């Protein structure tokens, strides 16, 4: 936020906001938030107004999360009933995951921290949640707008395009269709009831098809919105080097990891320590690591659960981001809370939870010891960041594991049911 103010000041004094190395955000954010940094109301310092904006953004995201959660909950119920499991699992309470997710988002210490610290992550989070909400409610332009804005604000949200396409193409999260159908098929063969056959046909018709039209519609809207955003950016940066400068200073800054100030991620220290001759090589390796190892395997395996895939991508990118912030963690934790029903039997959840608490308490301490008191060493804080990254990795892995196990369990249950 301080850098937004600096960028705005530079722009006001007729210089490029990217002239110094202080501001690396979007020019649109600058023109929206910039005036707020200088305006004061009744003697209160200027950041009150900005924090108000962030609080509004947070509340909006929580509301959208709740709506998304309700949709997902409905879909979950529907799926269970389609599989005929609802009767058997009637005693099992379906939690109101929307409310839980919204509460997790609002009461998350990470969210509060990022809001208090005047980071711009609430706005980035809002954009991400808007895109997910738009896709869940099948409002294609909204989803496209959210995606474009999120990508514009932080590059890594571009990975969300894949889950969004799946979401629009296949529909909401469901147990893997093929498996269910096959088990169904077995059931049909064995029981031979006509009603089941008709039901199954309906099921194939509704779920099997990948609706190309919606996806094309989505792609079209993405193109429309991104050209709109680019035009706006180029208008606002006309005197200062235009779009090329913007890409160099925002995306280039993210990809080249130029700023080595400590954050909760891993890369700052890595690239502060790494030898100069291997720097470019490692930059390529790590960016490819995110691109190749993070995205495709999850997409292949979890394509039947696009919302969960979105969660996995967000978590993954928030770990491997060049400049992560606690706001990113808040976002993926609240998205995780959308799947409380599915993930009830997650392994080691207590251990991971304790790890999160431990590291989020330790990292300010280590930061203080190193930076402010000067009694500690950089390794203290870096070790902490490594541990945090480990726990995040574990969290993603265990969640994916639990989700797959859940599908398995569902399948098993259907198989047993049909057998009976």
């Amino acid at each position, binding site marked *: 936020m301080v850098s937004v103010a600096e960028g705005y*000041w530079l722009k006001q004094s007729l210089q490029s906001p990217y*002239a110094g190395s202080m501001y690396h955000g979007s020019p649109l954010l600058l023109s929206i938030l910039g005036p707020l940094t200088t305006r004061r109301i009744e003697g209160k310092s200027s950041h009150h107004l900005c924090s108000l904006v962030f609080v509004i953004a947070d509340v909006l995201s929580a509301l959208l999360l709740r709506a998304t959660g309700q949709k997902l909950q409905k879909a979950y119920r529907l799926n269970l009933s389609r599989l005929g499991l609802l009767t058997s699992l009637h005693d099992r309470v379906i939690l109101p995951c929307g409310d839980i997710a919204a509460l997790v988002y609002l009461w998350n210490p990470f969210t509060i921290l990022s809001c208090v610290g005047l980071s711009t992550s609430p706005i980035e989070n809002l954009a991400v949640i808007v895109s997910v909400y738009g896709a869940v409610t099948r409002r294609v332009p909204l989803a496209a707008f959210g995606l474009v804005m999120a990508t514009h604000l932080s590059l890594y949200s571009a990975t969300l395009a894949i889950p969004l396409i799946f979401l629009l193409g296949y529909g909401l999260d469901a147990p893997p269709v093929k498996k269910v159908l096959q088990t169904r098929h077995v059931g049909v063969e064995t029981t031979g009831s006509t009603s089941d056959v008709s039901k199954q046909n309906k099921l194939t018709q509704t779920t099997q098809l990948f609706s190309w039209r919606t996806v094309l519609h989505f792609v079209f809207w993405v193109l429309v919105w991104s050209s709109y955003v680019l035009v706006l950016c180029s208008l606002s940066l006309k005197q200062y080097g235009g779009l090329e400068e913007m890409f160099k200073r925002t995306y280039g800054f993210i990809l080249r990891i130029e700023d080595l*100030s400590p954050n909760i991620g891993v890369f700052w220290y890595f690239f*502060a320590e790494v030898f100069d001759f291997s720097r470019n090589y490692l930059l390529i390796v790590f960016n490819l690591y995110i691109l190749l190892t993070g995205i495709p395997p999850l997409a*292949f395996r979890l394509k039947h659960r696009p919302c969960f895939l979105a969660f996995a991508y967000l978590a993954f990118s928030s770990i491997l981001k060049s400049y992560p912030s606690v706001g990113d963690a808040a976002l993926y934790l609240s998205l995780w809370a959308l799947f409380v029903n599915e993930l009830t039997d997650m392994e080691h959840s207590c251990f991971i939870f304790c790890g999160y608490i431990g590291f989020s308490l330790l990292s300010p301490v280590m930061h203080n010891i190193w930076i402010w008191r000067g009694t500690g060493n950089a*390794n203290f804080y870096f070790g902490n960041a*490594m541990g945090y990254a480990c726990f995040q990795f574990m969290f993603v892995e265990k969640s994916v594991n639990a989700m797959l196990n859940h599908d398995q369990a569902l399948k098993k249950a259907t198989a047993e049911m049909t057998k009976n």
Partner: protein
Amino acid sequence: MASLLRSLFLLLIVQSFLVAIAFGSNEVEEFSEALLLKPLPDRKVLAHFHFENRAPPSNSHGRHHHLFPKAISQLVQKFRVKEMELSFTQGRWNHEHWGGFDPLSSMNAKPVGVELWAVFDVPLSQVDTSWKNLTHALSGLFCASINFLESSTSYAAPTWGFGPNSDKLRYGSLPREAVCTENLTPWLKLLPCRDKDGISALMNRPSVYRGFYHSQRLHLSTVESGQEGLGSGIVLEQTLTVVLQPETTSVESNMQPSWSLNSLFGRKVVGRCVLAKSSNVYLQLEGLLGHELKNMDTKIEAHNLWKNADFELSLKPDRVLRESSSFLFVFDIDKSSDSEPFDLGLTWKLPSKWSCQQAPLHASRFLMGSGNERGAIAILLKATESQEKLSGRDLTNGQCTIKANIFQIFPWYIKVYYHTLQIFVDQQQKTDSEVLKKINVSPSTDKVSSGMMEMMLELPCEVKSVAISIEYDKGFLHIDEYPPDANQGFDIPSALISFPNHHASLDFQEELNKSPLLSSFKEKSLVRSYTEVLLVPLTTPDFSMPYNVITITCTIFALYFGSLLNVLRRRIGEEERFLKSQGKKTGGLKQLLSRITAKIRGRPIEEQSSSESPAAQSSVLSSKLIFKIILVAGAAAAWQYFSTDK
């Protein structure tokens, strides 16, 4: 004998002819030396050596010079330097006691370390390359690490905040450069007499470097000749300013110490440098003292002594010049000889006190905040009791104002937030528009260029204090960018405060023979003062850790990738096992399930019995493994090939 005489005669004729050619443009290269001595109010003595070397504008000399150092003229010709100043300084100029308003202090009070600025006479696009080449040349010439000013992160292009207004000006300073005899020796080599003869013979290294302040300056400017075809003349001005503490033997604490040249430098002047056009020694006495001196008839005694009620000089001055508040005694060292060396001495008889003229505002600079993440720089300007305030007043719109320019360079690792600039006048915060007349900021770019800030303040005359604060974040550097003593901290170069409406000049109404020193005093010079150099500690990473960090980080990524892939593909195996156990029970299901697994695996349906399949699988696996190994080896070979190719 006659032939010898004739040949000698011929030689003489030829020589005189050559000389006539050399002096064809009736202007000759001139060299003059001078030494100014000045007792300071805080019991110290200032010695200011001044050497001026003029090469007149002419092209008839070609590359040949009589007195002018060839190295400098080559420098000027090669890099087309219009004006340049290089200073090596150690110690801080005490503006309160040593003066801040006279030409001496405004020209010779320099920031600690090396300061270099130059104006070039080249197209704008070549200025930076000229600057870079110049730094390298000077670095070699003066045995100093001036070449560090080459990198774009260490110099700036001031527009108006620094004295001369030119867009071809480059300014850079190295606060941490240690200045020692190795810099003085090449500097002395530029003098025609070196330190062998004349005034420069006084420069005894131990006594020069024992001083409180020591600044060695080289200023050169080119003089354009109006005529077509003539090259430009060069004026090279070399000064050495030393502040020394005379050894006192007197017990009285309020008595000013007495000194002589011999006691200050441990050497005496034996004759002038024969190549010098003029060689004078001046003694300047300031303030109250002069006032008393005015109505005093001086007694000249037989032993070349010159004394009055206050003090006594060991030599008789040739002339006494007076200015409004100070007296200047002029000595010509022509008369000294081996038997009777020139050894000026000053002996005080009565305790006396006086004060120096000070700049309208006294500048100091300090850091605020703690910790290694952020901080603030504050520049404090305090009003001094100076009469000259009146003389430099700018009466615009009936208001009395003082103008002050602040010029400051920030290295890139000091990430300044210019929007946090706050100005307090007499402890009251002022908005920018009230006092800030002009501001020019060029923000720093990480690892590319340093930041620069120029401000023009317009303050009311009755101002007591002005504080300017600006916040910054400390940058984090790559492990290679730290100097060997990283924990010492980093220096922020001095800020320059100049007062554009105030000019210092001393006019001694001396018209008899134009001494370059006095004429340089006569020129109006901008009143300037440099602030302290700031030491900013930056956070350091652990310098012994690169391998550990690289391996640990990569291990964690590998672990994550491995475990995630394991999770993603584990279900297949589970399912297989599960289905196998199912298949034993129901025969019909088994076929179907094997078809399912086959479909998942994307292989043709295996109709063989289960006992055969592991072998087949393993063969497939091994062939895959071999393929992978070959692929990796190929990639490695390609990498090796391309890297060695470079």
